Every structure is written in C-alpha cells, then in structure tokens.
C-alpha cells in the first residue's frame, strides 16, 4: 500500500527565482537556508512521487471556465510555460509524471463525488516551477501536479479545501501501489498580485496564520482563518493558502515553521513549513 511520507508547504513567489537578488541580503540568506532545509527534509523522506497542490494563475484555464481542481496526468511535465521562462529566469525543466496515480485521482475522485478536471499537458508558471527548482532539481522525483482555483471568484473556502484534502488522504491511502508519497502545498502567504496593494505584505496576518499552524488545532484554524480574513490580508493571492489548508488534512499536530520573511522585494509574505506528524 502507498504511504504518505512527508507534508510541507512553501511560498512560490516568482521573485524567488526571477529577481531573488533584489531582496535585502539577510532575506536572501534566510531564504536559501530555509529552502535548503526544506529540500533536505523532503529528500530524507525518500519519496517516489510528489503530489503538489498549487494555484493555477489563469494559465491552464480561461476565465470563463476555471475548475476548482485540475490534475496533470501526463507522462512527463515540462515547464516553465512559454513567456514565463523569462519572468522566472528559469531554464526549461522536465519532470517525470506518474500517470497511473494521477488518473486514479481523477477517476476515484469522481466515484467519491469530487470533480477533478485533468490535463494531459499541463502548463506551469511560478506555482509549480519555483518549488520544483528548489526542492526537486533535475526532476529526480516524479510529480503529480494538482492545480487549484485560488484567484477567480468564487474561490473555494478553506473548509472546502480541507474537506477535499481529507478525501484525497483516504484516496491515496487506498492506492494499491507501493509508492512513498510526499504532499507539497505551494502559494501564499499574504500578497495581492496585481491589486492596489501589490507591494504590500501583511506581516501580522502571516505570523498569526503560522502561529495557528504551530498550534496544530485544525478546527480552530478553520474557524478563524476564513476566506474573508485571507482576502483582507491580500486579495486574490493570500487565498493560495487554501493549498496549505488542503495539505493540513494530511497531518496532525503542530507544524515546524522553517522560516518567515516579510519579503516586499518579492511582493509576498514568504514562508516554509514542514509537518512532523502525518494523519
């Protein structure tokens, strides 16, 4: 049977690759340290496949049709998408997919009344490209990307994402293969991409949210961290934390906060966490 061997979350801000050196030196140093630690903890879990949850930034689906969740079912994933390569300052990368597991998520999800759209050729912007650059260089570990709608109204609520995470946890536990699976959530923390507060970072919100994760009380987090509260902290971007909340359903107990940086140079509250106990 498959086993979940790791659960972690990180910011995917494009500045982490595209204009990394524009941040203050101490933020660059701390980000390098934290990303190195995250990678080390991922590698030490020896996953066969990473199931990654991230916002689709209106890249794969037009605004008239934005599924809540989309699974990339390809044999291989190639990124970054054209035009994003220059923005992210990343060379083209290739990562093996896991089509059997990905197609299982789509079909078993349907049986469990979860509508997962799918793409055989998913395109990748910062949401997957930045975390893979730091955590999975060379594409050594297979990837099943799952994109979410965190930015086009109606944005799913945190409760909805946690519920989907709970069903996904049961689905992955029932997968008959021997794979060791790592759960990776990407996005957040506070930011408002393209909005009037584009340059703003809500440090107070970010520290409050991370403290909720450190406390490890899921019901309390779901009660307090509403979609409205996330929108106040940065509209259209902070709700990427829905991916973290989905991943939360794979865990129990407190999260280790590896780092937090109120990185205005990257226009994003930047954080990395790892959960030690898996549900």
């Amino acid at each position: 049977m498959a086993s979940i061997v790791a659960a972690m979350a990180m910011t995917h801000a494009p500045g982490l690759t595209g204009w990394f050196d524009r941040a203050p030196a101490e933020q660059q140093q701390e980000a390098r340290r934290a990303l190195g630690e995250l990678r080390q903890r991922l590698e030490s879990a020896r996953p066969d496949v990473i199931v990654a949850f991230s916002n689709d930034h209106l890249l794969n689906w037009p605004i008239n049709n934005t599924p809540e969740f989309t699974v990339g079912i390809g044999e291989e994933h190639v990124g970054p998408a054209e035009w994003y390569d220059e923005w992210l300052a990343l060379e083209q990368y290739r990562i093996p997919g896991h089509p059997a597991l990905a197609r299982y998520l789509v079909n078993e999800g349907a049986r469990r009344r979860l509508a997962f759209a799918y793409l055989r050729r998913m395109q990748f912007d910062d949401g997957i490209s930045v975390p893979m650059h730091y955590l999975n260089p060379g594409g050594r570990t297979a990837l099943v990307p799952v994109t979410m709608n965190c930015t086009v109204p109606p944005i799913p609520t945190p409760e909805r994402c946690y519920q989907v995470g709970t069903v996904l946890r049961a689905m992955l536990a029932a997968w008959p293969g021997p794979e060791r699976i790592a759960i990776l959530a990407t996005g957040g923390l506070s930011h408002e991409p393209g909005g009037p507060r584009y340059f703003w970072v809500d440090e107070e919100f970010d520290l409050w949210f991370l403290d909720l994760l450190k406390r490890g009380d899921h019901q309390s987090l779901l009660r307090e961290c509403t979609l409205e509260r996330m929108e106040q902290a940065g509209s259209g971007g902070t709700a990427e934390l829905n991916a973290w909340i989905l991943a939360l359903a794979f865990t129990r107990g407190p999260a280790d906060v590896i780092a937090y940086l109120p990185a205005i140079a990257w226009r994003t509250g930047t954080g990395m966490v790892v959960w030690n106990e898996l549900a």
Partner: protein
Amino acid sequence: MGNVERCDKTLPLNEMMFYVRKDARLRARWQTDLETLCREFGLGADEAQALRDRDVRRLNELGVHQYYIPQIMRLFFGAAANSNTHPALEAYRRAFPEETARAFALAERLERRAKG
C-alpha cells in the same frame, strides 16, 4: 471580499489575455497592431483606451482580473527582472500612490528592524 471581486469574468480583455500570453504570434501583434487585435477579441472602447493609456487603475476599475494587469504591463515593458523598480511596476506606483507609499514605508521599517 477584496479587490479580486471587482473582476468582470465576461470582459473581452480577460479572454484576450488568456490567449495572448500563450501565443508568440499574438504577442508579436500586441506590439505591432494592438488596435486590430482589440477589435478581433471584441474589446469595448473603454477597454481599448485603458490599454492604450497603460492605465492600471482604469483597467482595474473596468473589471480586468487583477492578476492580468501586471501581465499587460509586462507585455508593454518586458518581463525580465520584474523587481519593484521595473517600468511595469512603476505604472502601479502611479496608479495607487497611497497604497504604494504605505508598502514602501513598511519595507523601510522592516529593513531598519532587520539591521537592529
């Protein structure tokens, strides 16, 4: 809810941006024949004028999805090294001076704090 709720999901410019980003030929036409491109995608006069003016605030008011607005600016000014001093971001400073001033005051406070 926040600014993202201003988005008009039926606005032709929101549809146009989805395709322009993905297609090098459309991106080339953006640079050479934006007027025809706007007509082909059915943009209204207000949308086309806001584009011509590179008017971030007006684009936001019209209901362009906020995520597309910096991408519009990058189509005009380039995408590489998109730091806070990039010309595409200068358009934001002009459009939202109060919000921007607050953010940069915060950046200065954070930097002072970091240096002790």
